């Protein structure tokens, strides 16, 4: 398994507050990898560090073979075209229609003809399950779930090898969330992409996530498949997977571990 993202000894501080104190993790190619942790554990910050929006105070992050600490401007620009990012609240450009939002990178970075770009935009819109007329609307005219889908379409526009999703299913109805999960798995299988996501969604975790990292106490306290993570006795893991609500979902996993 080749590594797509590797974080080594990440330290992050905001003023005197330390968020990460030596975070290590590895994301393999073609994996759906989840970052879990309680609120304030620094999941979003870690993701922002992976996509070069924030620089860690110490440690190294290697994404698709580039060390983010030493990467040059041109390489960084190239790297930015190889990933797609879905922000938690979509972050669609409010002055552009949905179709223009999806098209914007294609227009800037490729020499595709207008007709070809239109076709790609239409295929992305349909792929994420939106109606054609949505393409002509502005983000302010959309509901939360539609914004999520539109933002995913935009993240996929440049045919990325790597997809970052910040709470992709939060704010979606249960059926919508499961469809979204299915879509992510389909995309992974078909396009061979790697997916890194922050999520709290127990269904996503048990059904689509291949491996995950649990972020707590400023460290990764457990990393691996669900079965591996469940072996951990860290209080957060106990609390998260073995509480009265989630117990049922993971019971079959426990049974495997403790026959």
């Amino acid at each position: 398994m080749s590594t797509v993202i590797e974080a080594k000894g990440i330290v992050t501080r905001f003023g005197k507050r330390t968020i990460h104190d030596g975070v290590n993790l590895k994301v393999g190619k073609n994996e759906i990898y989840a970052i879990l942790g309680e609120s304030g554990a620094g999941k979003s910050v870690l993701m922002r560090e992976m996509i070069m929006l924030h620089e860690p105070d110490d440690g190294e992050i290697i994404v698709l073979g580039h060390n983010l600490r030493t990467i040059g401007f041109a390489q960084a620009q190239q790297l930015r075209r190889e990933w797609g990012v879905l922000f938690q609240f979509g972050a669609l450009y409010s002055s552009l229609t949905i179709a223009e939002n999806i098209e914007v990178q294609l227009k800037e970075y490729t020499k595709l003809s207008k007709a070809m770009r239109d076709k790609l935009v239409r295929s992305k819109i349909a792929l994420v399950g939106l109606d054609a007329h949505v393409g002509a609307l502005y983000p302010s005219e959309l509901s939360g779930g539609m914004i999520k889908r539109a933002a995913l379409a935009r993240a996929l526009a440049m045919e990325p090898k790597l997809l970052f999703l910040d709470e992709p299913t939060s704010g979606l109805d249960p059926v919508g969330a499961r469809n979204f999960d299915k879509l992510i798995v389909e995309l992974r299988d078909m396009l061979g992409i790697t997916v890194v996501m922050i999520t709290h969604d127990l269904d996503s975790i048990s059904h689509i996530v291949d491996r995950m990292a649990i972020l707590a106490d400023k460290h990764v306290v457990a990393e691996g498949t669900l079965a591996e993570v469940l072996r951990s006795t860290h209080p957060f893991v106990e609390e998260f997977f073995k509480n009265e609500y989630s117990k049922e979902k993971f019971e079959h996993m426990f049974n495997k571990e403790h026959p």
Partner: protein
Amino acid sequence: MDQEYIVWEQNKEKTLLYGKGTWNLETVPQIERALKRVPLDKPLVWDVSEIKVFDSAGVLLFRTFYQAFKKRVPVEIVGYTQSQKEMYEMLSSHMSEEIPQRGEGFLAQIGKSVIVTMGDIKGFVNFLGHLFYAFFYLLTHPKQLRIKETVYHIHQSGVNALVIIAMTSFLVGMVIAYQGAVQLAKFGADIFIVDTVGISIVRELGPMITAIVIAGRSGSAYTAEIGAMKITEEISAMRTMGFDPYHFLVLPRVFALIVALPLLIFFADIVGIFGGLVASSMQLGISFDQFVSRLNEVLEVKHYILGMIKGPVFAFIIAAIGCFRGFQVSDNTESIGLHTTASVVNAIFLVIAFDAIFSVIYTELGL
């Protein structure tokens, strides 16, 4: 050069077309050009087995040309892999219809802007209604007055504006004195510079300059503050908790400006006259003593009062428009900028328009 992506050869019965290499976002424009030159006189056999790397752009291109070719000649596709087929099927089943255009004709745009303007006027009347309702409610329930917020805004819009008001009015006073001095010197009527500066500053320029600076400074701030609160749904949150935004946001700002603006005008009058004084002594050699004693003779109190009356009116216009435009902000970031601009432009225009109305009224009354 195009041999990199496709090659073709022809025999008696058919054309053999081979796709190869990388078909992705980068290469699609070149492949598209090459495909347009494929001869379509005989049945086509298209071999795609050598296309090693592809993404949905590549597959879409293939689909587009496959359909175009099919209309002209029989086409047979050979050598496709499982993953090529999967992606082809996914893209074929996921293709939305044409995205409708949003363009509008010239007439439609005119009609739309008329409707928008009418809506703005109606909305503003509605806003004023709410504002007065809140005001009269406050008269009967004086304890509801948000004193802390009001004082905060007096500080923000009044005290913090002193420096910029001082500089502007000082310079305006100087400019009036300089311009007047040149004309009055021709008639040897040097001392009348005091009348010119004193009366024009106190009656007209002091109130107007102050109001314009405050419209740009505080009017825009009110719009941006309330607009940002609207985008983050803070205003909705306030409403659900039973906090009327007119009591919590609008009235403190209106009261603050009604208190602060007359005080600022008083300050601007003094600094403006001082600017005139400095310029007259430099340009015409009128001493400070001469200037002040002449000012005492000619500057009647009524001029000061007539100027001051405008203060609360201008303050109300600026604060009301600033808040009204803030509430109009819809939930996208661009909207804050548009409404802030509109707020300042409307406020300055109305300040000048009301100043003209005051002039007409004063003249008619013989004041």
